[in-house]
């Protein structure tokens, strides 16, 4: 991670890259990530059995609780999480700091 990487501002999620592996959820020291997924069977022509894939249903970071340690970003095996440099996302109510997959993915295209 280079020094110019924006850190400790906001975490972006790339839902397409997330395999619902739960590594970030387990490693987060603040317990502020929650994730729901289900398993689907994918049948392919010629395959002897269907593949099973995890499909992400919900991914939430509670920014009212997050300690911005970056452990989720460092441990994600699929580079589905990354720092972005916006700090201006306060909320008038406590629940507004809980950002779901749609909120988190909106941060992805901006920044580095």
């Amino acid at each position, binding site marked *: 991670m280079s020094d110019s990487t924006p850190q400790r501002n906001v975490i972006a999620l790339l839902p397409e890259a997330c395999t619902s592996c739960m590594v970030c959820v387990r490693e987060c020291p*603040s317990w502020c990530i929650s994730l729901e997924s289900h398993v689907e069977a994918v049948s392919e022509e010629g395959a002897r059995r269907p593949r099973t894939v995890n499909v992400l249903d919900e991914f939430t970071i509670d920014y*009212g*609780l*997050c*300690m911005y340690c970056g452990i989720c970003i460092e441990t994600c095996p699929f580079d589905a999480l990354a720092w972005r440099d916006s700090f*201006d996302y*306060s909320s008038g109510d*406590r629940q507004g700091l809980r950002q779901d997959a749609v909120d988190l993915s909106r941060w992805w295209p901006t920044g580095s």
Partner: protein
Amino acid sequence: MWRLASRPDVAVDVASAGLACCSLEVEAAGQRGLLVASETVPQAAAVTVLVVAGTVTTAVEPALVRLFDEHAQHGPVIIVSFGACATSGGPYWDAPTVRPGIEALFPGQEIASYVPGCPPRPEALVVELERLVDSRIPA
């Protein structure tokens, strides 16, 4: 007590309840000239923004409520929850001696805004104060 450097004409006092590391960011905003120290006694018409910055232990709760009451005697008080600890207990949310957020700490008082961060940047504080001043306090 502080005043907002970018809104010199608005009579708003910024009081920081500095309880832990987050309060250093309030100080940093002062060092960068975004907040200016004010020695003035609060006037009856002045609005005070109480910035709760840091970990609220159960031991410090009564003192924090008293601080709010003191300011409320002089006029309206807007409360800002600055950083994860004030908002939820932050990294210490599961400690029995830490209050898991100030949402219901001040009876009958709403929290005007929750600023995320552990700690939030000084700029985040100033942007929030400007927004509150512009939307809630007539110049």
